[in-house]
């Protein structure tokens, strides 16, 4: 469609509240036909497809067949809708008795020296992320990056990664990325922009009126380039605005490292450091936290969480106190005061008995563990919390032991981002802005609502936008330059510990994208200097210093090989003292508090178009494809809503319509909203999903604000992947008599020895540390659900005496439910994205899911996270019932699914006790989009319509390892095969290996008394075992808080 039209829509992008129908006059289907007139055949489908992306077309469809409308906006079913021809072709093509067509081979002209076709190569790089770079080792097949994983040698993340990082792979291959530079909608060339820009700036002599608005700069080289620009053009201004961290201590340059391996007691003040990389140091913190829990007999750490929105951190905590976000600063102050931190007085506040008790216990614990504890402040809290936390740690003598305040900031150019943005806006309004160059930022979408960025924006003379997509900002900017993905361009970044990683490109820019380095370089003396050279010159000294024999080139090659530059970690600050400014008073208890958080899956909205992340059920609420107004059950009841009702939330002048859902343990009278949704121009996947919470976010309240809500008619139709009922059963009917527990939880969870009590299913088994010490075998005693002895079976048992018997062990104590494994599985196994409508009816294709069970009163639950994938039962119920033998057992005990034999009776799925099989009900795999073909793992079949699929223990990796071993005439070594989920896991919760090798790690884990099998009483003999949880509870708090407001639902 014409870009003019796009402009208009862009103009109204943030005026029209998301969810509401677009305002331009709807076109009728006749017009559609008109548009399509004359085009035929393939072209017809293509243009129809393009057309389908336009707002008016959707409107038209909605008008003429309302039922189909929802289908239509759903990417997958739309594809299905359009590709009937495709589907029928596939149907014909797949039929058994047709011959396959001629396939051409296109050999190289000159084959690259180091390339062995069919063998992957691995390159070290890093994912430059605002909370600290994630060092990577990227798998590349025929020079196409096909799998991203942490760099195993890097001492920061030691091979682990996170959902964001895993998702960036699909982000790079996103077919909706902008493909060429544009000026007022016409295709231009980068050179033209460079010329014009350079000349323009040169003409200003000192850079007056030249403004840069950039996302937070993570690259030291970029910072260097900027400082050089400043030298030449002192009046040019740089504004950094990163919606997710603006206003946080991170943005203002405070940089703290924690060493949890030495912490016996951890206190989180609204810090969600276990659930996603949005907290600095996630990978290391999780790893250290988990390491202290793997062998309870060796002693465990104990985690206390004080938090607002329920997070996995809080749910993993031994003891959790839910507070309204605005109460937390005061709580921190009270804690500091009680611990005798100089200059802090406890603010007078009416804490409840429970809260006071919790506080008292914390004080006691921290004092008792001075020097062996850590207090971690929340990133999305008033900076005073961070200051208090540092003071507390200092007072407790943790500084230098478990806590290090570093001398350098985590981001090279710390700044008051909100303040700067305000200044920029006023300058724009004052007409001072001649050129505004936006670098990888999307202010039109995510700037604070009260700034009215758009009107200011229109006052700027020329706006140039460097971005990966033609997003809301790109739509209306005069210049748009496609930006290169980090896998496409040279750069550098620093990890949590400060180690510098060189960001090494894996592939030529797919769409000729440029990076911010290019843009700044155009203003410097030699605009021709490439980012590559820029990065090299930045680190010349450091590398030469670290290099053997001081040879830079040698050193450089080593850096590229290892992925980092030696000796670049942060130095500790001497006597870090932070002035504690006033602690904000809590918001009145009866007023509604709206809490803003970046989304656990798509962060600030940048990954809105990444299907893997959209389809990923968010931790705690299991919500996919949307954000929502998240409240406590009691609040829902109080307001008289049901889940999925639509409410209107208003803060200041901002209003949004949002579905309301419940998060167990959420503070009452508070609404948590995730940022990053409600994009208008995210792309075919993200556009129109959820609502735009930025419309509620103002400069004066970036983290939480007073708001209001009112009911709107209708249901939203959220896609929640997990059934959640409340247990209303009376005692006589298996129940607990009270309706406040989760039915699923009551059914699944069995605390030690309570086999005949709640949860006779024995799915979650755990004990307290004392119980465990008293009875190490608690995970088996009293449970009716253990594997019967071999000779109980009528049939003789199959024996697995091959050299290998593959098995997996999952440590329930370590898993923090961060979802990294799921996204990793997506990438490794070419799993299809099915779209919201399909997810709603329970058809998501994730081979691996993380089950969360809530135990006890849903107002203050304890949760248990259980990664659940195919258990590879030795007596697999699925195999027995397949009429064509499409799922069989290998001699090594794998339960393999032979896609091309499957006829799709789905009987196996019915008969699977763990319901881990996934079926291609429709043509889910995308066979059309070219860029996605490049991304797929060549060693895994792409499943077509009508076949069953499931976790294969990454059989392709097993085969590869076995072939290597066979060639070298040896057995596969323990740890040589790493499954995709295991590889990604920051907590090392998953272990895979050979159970017939008694020395292997997995055998040892299985030998533990704590390890148990699921639903083993029906004699499935799973190969996956779980290591039961042990909780290091504090006696004083064990009596759970008494009465909660009822949350009948």
């Amino acid at each position, binding site marked *: 469609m014409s870009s003019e039209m796009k402009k208009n829509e862009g103009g109204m992008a943030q005026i029209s509240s998301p969810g509401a129908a677009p305002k331009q006059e709807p076109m009728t289907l006749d017009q559609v036909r008109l548009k399509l007139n004359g085009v035929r055949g393939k072209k017809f489908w293509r243009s129809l497809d393009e057309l389908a992306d336009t707002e008016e077309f959707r409107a038209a469809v909605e008008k003429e067949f309302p039922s189909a409308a929802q289908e239509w906006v759903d990417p997958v079913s739309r594809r299905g809708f359009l590709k009937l021809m495709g589907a029928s072709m596939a149907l014909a093509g797949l039929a058994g008795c047709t011959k396959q067509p001629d396939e051409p081979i296109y050999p190289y002209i000159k084959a690259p020296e180091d390339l062995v076709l069919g063998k992957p190569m691995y390159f070290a790089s890093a994912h430059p992320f605002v909370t600290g770079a994630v060092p990577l080792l990227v798998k590349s097949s025929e020079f196409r990056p096909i799998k991203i994983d942490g760099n195993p040698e890097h001492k920061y993340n030691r091979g682990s990664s996170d959902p964001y990082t895993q998702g960036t792979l699909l982000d790079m291959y996103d077919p909706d990325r902008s493909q060429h530079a544009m000026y007022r909608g016409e295709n231009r060339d980068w050179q033209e922009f460079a010329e014009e820009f350079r000349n323009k700036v040169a003409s200003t002599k000192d850079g007056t009126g030249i403004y840069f608005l950039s996302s937070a700069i993570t690259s030291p080289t970029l910072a260097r380039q900027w400082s050089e620009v400043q030298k030449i053009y002192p009046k040019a201004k740089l504004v950094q605005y990163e919606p997710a961290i603006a206003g946080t201590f991170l943005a203002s340059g405070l940089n703290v490292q924690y060493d949890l391996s030495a912490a016996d007691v951890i206190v989180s003040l609204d810090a969600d450091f276990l659930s996603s990389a949005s907290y600095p140091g996630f990978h290391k913190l999780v790893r250290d936290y988990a390491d202290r829990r793997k062998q309870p007999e060796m002693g465990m750490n104990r985690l206390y969480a004080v938090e607002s929105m329920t997070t996995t951190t809080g749910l993993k905590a031994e003891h959790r106190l839910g507070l309204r976000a605005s109460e937390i600063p005061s709580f921190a102050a009270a804690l500091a005061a009680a611990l005798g931190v100089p200059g802090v007085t406890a603010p007078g506040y009416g804490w409840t008995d429970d809260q006071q008790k919790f506080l008292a216990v914390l004080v006691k614990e921290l004092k008792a563990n001075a020097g062996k504890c850590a207090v971690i402040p929340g990133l999305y809290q008033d900076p005073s919390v961070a200051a208090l936390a540092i003071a507390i740690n200092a007072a407790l003598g943790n500084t230098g032991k478990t806590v290090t305040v570093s001398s350098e900031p985590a981001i090279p150019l710390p700044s008051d981002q909100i303040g700067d943005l305000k200044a920029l806006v006023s300058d724009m309004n004052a007409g001072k802005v001649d050129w505004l160059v936006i670098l990888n930022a999307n202010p039109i979408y995510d700037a604070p609502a009260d700034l009215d960025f758009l009107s200011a924006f229109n006052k700027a003379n020329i706006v140039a936008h460097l971005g990966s997509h033609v997003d809301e900002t790109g739509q209306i900017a005069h210049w748009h330059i496609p930006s290169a993905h980090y896998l496409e361009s040279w750069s550098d970044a620093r990890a949590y510990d400060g180690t510098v990683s060189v960001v090494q490109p894996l592939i030529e820019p797919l769409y000729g994208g440029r990076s911010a380095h290019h843009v700044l370089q155009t203003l410097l003396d030699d605009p021709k200097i490439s980012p590559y050279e820029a990065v090299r010159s930045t680190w010349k000294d450091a590398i030469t210093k670290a290099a053997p024999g001081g040879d830079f080139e040698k050193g450089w090659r080593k850096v590229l090989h290892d992925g980092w530059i030696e000796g670049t970690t942060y130095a500790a600050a001497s006597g870090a003292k932070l002035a504690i400014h006033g602690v904000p008073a809590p918001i009145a208890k009866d007023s509604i508090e709206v809490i803003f958080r970046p989304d656990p899956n798509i962060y600030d909205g940048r990954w809105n178009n990444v299907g893997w992340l959209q389809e990923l059920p968010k931790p705690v609420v299991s919500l996919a494809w949307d954000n929502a107004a998240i409240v406590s059950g009691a609040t829902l009841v109080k307001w008289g809503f049901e889940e999925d009702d639509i409410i209107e939330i208003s803060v200041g002048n901002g209003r949004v319509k949002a579905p309301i859902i419940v998060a167990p343990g959420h503070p009452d009278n508070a609404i948590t909203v995730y940022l990053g949704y409600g994009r208008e121009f995210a792309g075919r996947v993200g556009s129109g999903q959820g609502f735009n919470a930025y419309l509620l976010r103002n400069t004066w309240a970036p983290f939480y604000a007073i708001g209001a809500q009112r009911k709107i008619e209708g249901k939203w139709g959220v896609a929640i992947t997990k059934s959640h009922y409340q247990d209303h059963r009376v005692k006589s009917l298996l129940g607990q008599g009270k309706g406040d527990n989760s039915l699923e939880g009551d059914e699944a969870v069995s605390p030690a020895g309570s086999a005949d009590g709640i949860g006779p299913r024995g799915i979650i088994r755990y004990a307290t540390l004392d119980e465990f010490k008293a009875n190490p075998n608690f995970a088996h005693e009293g449970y009716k659900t253990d594997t019967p002895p071999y000779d109980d079976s009528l049939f003789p048992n199959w024996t697995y005496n091959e050299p290998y018997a593959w098995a997996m062990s999952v440590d329930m104590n370590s898993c923090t439910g961060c979802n990294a494994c799921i996204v990793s599985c997506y990438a490794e196994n070419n799993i299809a994205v099915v779209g919201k409508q399909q997810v709603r009816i329970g058809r998501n294709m994730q081979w691996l899911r993380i089950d969360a069970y809530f135990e006890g009163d849903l107002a203050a639950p304890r949760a248990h996270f259980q990664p659940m994938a195919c258990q590879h039962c030795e*007596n697999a*119920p699925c*195999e027995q019932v397949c009429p064509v033998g499409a799922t*069989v*057992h*290998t001699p090594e005990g794998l339960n393999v699914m032979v896609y091309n034999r499957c006829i799709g009776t789905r009987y196996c799925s019915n008969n699977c006790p763990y319901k881990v099989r996934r079926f291609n009900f429709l043509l889910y795999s995308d066979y059309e989009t070219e860029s996605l073909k490049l991304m797929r793992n060549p060693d895994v079949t792409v499943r077509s319509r009508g076949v069953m699929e499931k976790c294969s223990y990454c059989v392709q990796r097993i085969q590869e390892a076995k072939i290597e071993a066979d060639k070298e005439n040896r057995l596969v070594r323990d740890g040589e095969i790493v499954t995709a989920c295991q590889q990604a896991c920051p907590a090392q919760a998953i272990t895979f290996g050979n159970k017939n090798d008694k020395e292997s790690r997995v055998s040892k884990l299985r030998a533990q008394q704590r390890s148990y099998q699921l639903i083993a009483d029906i004699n499935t*003999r799973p190969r996956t075992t779980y290591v039961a949880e042990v909780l290091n509870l504090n006696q004083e708090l064990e009596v759970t808080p008494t009465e909660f407001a009822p949350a009948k639902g």
Partner: protein
Amino acid sequence: MPAREGTYGLLAEFETPGDLVRAARKAHDDGWRRLECYTPYPVEEAAEAIGFHRNKVPLITLIGGLLGGAAMFAMETWISVLAYPTNFAGRPTYSWPAFIVPAYEWTILWAGLSAGFGMLALNGLPALYHPLFNAPNFRDGATTDKFFLCLEALDPKFELAESKEYLETMGPVSVVEVEY
């Protein structure tokens, strides 16, 4: 073979099954062997009267059934044990209890087919053309409400005129000569 010419036999028509049976029994007692009764519904007495007591259908059915069952069980065993032995759900390759069901079904299938088609075959059907249909009154009654006795020319005692009188003595409604 060349189409036969001449007389097929004599056809006597009776009103009631009783008359027919009496006539048939008498003829049989008198030594006629190539004779046949025709009735609109099964009349067992008639068959006995002409000395037809047992038939081979049950035997054929038995054989068919046994073959069917054996064949299926053998095939299942061959497939699971020899052709492509595989570990399904940790069950032994020779899972005989599971094999019984299809074998059982096939026993019935082949027994049934043998019974049905065996019967037709023994009856020499299909025989769309039959000399009797040449008789003017046969098709009008034989499948509705009339009862016929037919003395066939192949019987050594058959002599057109005499046999006709012989039949007349049994009080039929009519006696007609049937041509090939």
